[in-house]
């Protein structure tokens, strides 16, 4: 017992050497303020520009007779809050996946988890129309779990597990399969165009009901992620090192996987299968704060929210009054980044 404590002590010291708590604290504090500012900005920007002072009034001195106030309360506020939660969810999911699997290319979109959730939603649209949003979220988890099972199941069948490149390939194949199935359902039930807009990824139509339903899930999963963060750091050193340092890897991995599924599932059920947020943000965060997941996870959440808010503002401003699909926007930023990561870490792949 005391021995393992000692080892843990040592490992924390090692961690401290390669993590940058100061940078992390700055990101957390400054980032949170910027998120708040971004929130206000995001509420004020759109088809009808609204002054920041009006935004303030709408939130704290709401007057239902003022049109702008109701626009803010009914449309803009839920949308921006959804941005924040979705951004944080995808980023933290990506961070956990990258840490646990030691795969720099892991991302819920690239590994097919989003496609799984999307497939389940297509299924629900077709066979269970009018189910409550809460059950929709549960189905979304189920789909995410299905895809993860397929991707990692393939990995289990290989003796030494899959290399990152092969995992990406498995993810692509599983995505292709589940997308084809959703497409088949969509075409058969004539849901094509409904699904297309949802799949393009947008927070435009988010309602309060969705925001309040997803809120407890996201908060619970994020708290879980924080509690698990130390184990993830250990896992990111490799299974053997983690075991040597007294980490029980199996329960940690299982718990981590559940958190990833919840986060990705909820986020996809709101905005559609957006890829690359979960890839970019954890890398950026690690660059700033080092390798300790106790810092990476909260900072990823903050930076992810910020990124998503800004991207959503951007999507509205690029070509008004049309909204540019946010998933496309992310892909255009994300693809070069993916290539960069693949090249930089190419030797290990």
């Amino acid at each position, binding site marked *: 017992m005391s021995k393992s404590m000692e080892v843990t002590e040592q490992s924390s010291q090692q961690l401290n050497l390669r993590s940058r708590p100061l940078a992390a604290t700055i990101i957390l504090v400054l980032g949170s303020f910027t998120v708040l500012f971004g929130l206000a900005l995001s509420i004020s920007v759109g088809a009808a520009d609204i002054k920041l002072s009006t935004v303030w009034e709408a939130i704290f001195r709401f007057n239902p007779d003022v049109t702008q106030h109701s626009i803010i309360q009914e449309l803009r506020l839920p949308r921006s809050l959804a941005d924040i939660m979705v951004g944080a969810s995808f980023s933290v999911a990506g961070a956990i996946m990258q840490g646990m699997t030691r795969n720099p*290319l892991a991302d819920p979109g690239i590994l097919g988890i989003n496609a799984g959730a999307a497939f389940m939603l297509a299924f629900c649209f077709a066979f269970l129309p009018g189910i409550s949003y809460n059950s929709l979220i549960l189905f979304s988890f189920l789909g995410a779990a299905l895809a993860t099972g*397929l991707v990692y199941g*393939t990995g289990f*069948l*290989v*003796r*030494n*597990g*899959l*290399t990152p*490149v*092969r995992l*990406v*390939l*498995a993810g*692509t*194949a*599983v995505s*292709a*399969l589940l*997308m*084809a*199935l959703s*497409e*088949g359902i969509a*075409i*058969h039930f004539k849901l*094509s*165009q409904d699904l*297309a*807009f949802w799949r*393009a990824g947008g927070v435009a139509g988010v309602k309060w009901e969705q925001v309040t339903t997803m809120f407890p899930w996201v908060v619970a999963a994020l708290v879980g992620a924080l509690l698990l963060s130390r184990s993830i750091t250990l896992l990111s050193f490799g299974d053997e090192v983690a075991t040597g340092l007294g980490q029980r890897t199996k329960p940690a991995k299982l718990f981590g996987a559940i958190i990833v599924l919840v986060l990705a599932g909820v986020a996809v059920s709101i905005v559609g299968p957006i*890829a*690359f947020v979960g890839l970019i943000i954890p890398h950026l965060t690690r660059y700033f704060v080092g390798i300790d997941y106790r810092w990476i996870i909260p900072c990823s959440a903050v930076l992810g929210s910020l990124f998503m808010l800004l991207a959503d503002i951007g999507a509205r401003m690029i070509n008004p009054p*049309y909204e*540019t*699909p946010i*998933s*496309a*926007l*992310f*892909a*255009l930023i*994300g*693809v*070069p980044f*993916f*290539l960069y990561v*693949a*090249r930089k870490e*190419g030797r290990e*792949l």
Partner: protein
Amino acid sequence: MENILPLEAERKKKIRRITVLSILAILILLTFIISMNTGYSSLSPMEVIRTFFGMGTEKQSLILFEFRLPRIIVAILVGAGLAVSGCILQGISRNALADPGILGITTGAGLMVVLFVSFYPSNTAAPVLFLPFLALVGGSLTALLIYKLSYKKHHGLLPSRLILTGIAVAAGISALMTILTLRLTPQKYDFVAVWLAGTIWGTSWEFVLTLLPWIIVLFTFIFYKARILDVLNFGDKLATGLGVPVEKERLKLLAAAVGLAASCVSVSGGIAFIGLIGPHLARRLIGPHHQFLLPASALAGALLLLVADTLGRTIMQPSEIHAGIVVAIIGAPYFLYLLARSKA
């Protein structure tokens, strides 16, 4: 010294190859017949045969000759073209998982088609002959980009980088397509959605005639180059030692593969996995020599797409499942199986 036995083995191999090729051809013929009499209005096999020899009613011959036959021929040509394209890509990259769809070449060709559809005035008839050229431009640009990004000096083409780059580039191009498609009018949107799902939409003789010259010219060129593909399989160093100008030949073959994939995709939409499964099946049945592998891939690909298209038309009548979806549902698990079997 090494006379009788190797000769005997050689003969057996030859018989085996001929058998495999003939069985594939017979299967295609069978599917052809089945495909001819399935569809929205079904004809019995006898009716099909009678109509074929000019003894059917006017309505029957209209259905057969103007709707079913061209579609079946296009499916066969596209399947063969995509499979051979995949076979070449697997050969030159020495990567068993290469496929024009997975590598993004299909997507690049598709982008040009979508661009064309979104900017072309919808009230005039589209010049069909023009589409393969456009697709070719898109496919080539994409291939060039992927090649550039995955090429490394002194190391040549890095197989794993090629595939990762392909996947990433495909994702980027799909994103551009999403932006474009959401702005289309509902009519054009429907066309593009169907195109992306991968269906044989070019179902008139015009398309057969557009596609045929491409297939004939490129197949001839590729079969002529079969030996080079064998040599490239040995690796760059050995191939150079054997006197093959590796880079030059590889570019020529890549161009041919892109040409095939792009011209096929221009009439069939985004069908992936045919270029992966076709050559794999063929290699299992007939071995690694490209002289036989290429024709076997062509036949296997044609058979697969024809079966997929026929299934798609019949499973869920009256609504039609696009061939691309059927192929993905069969192809993706097969891909995973290959992945699981491959050495990590």
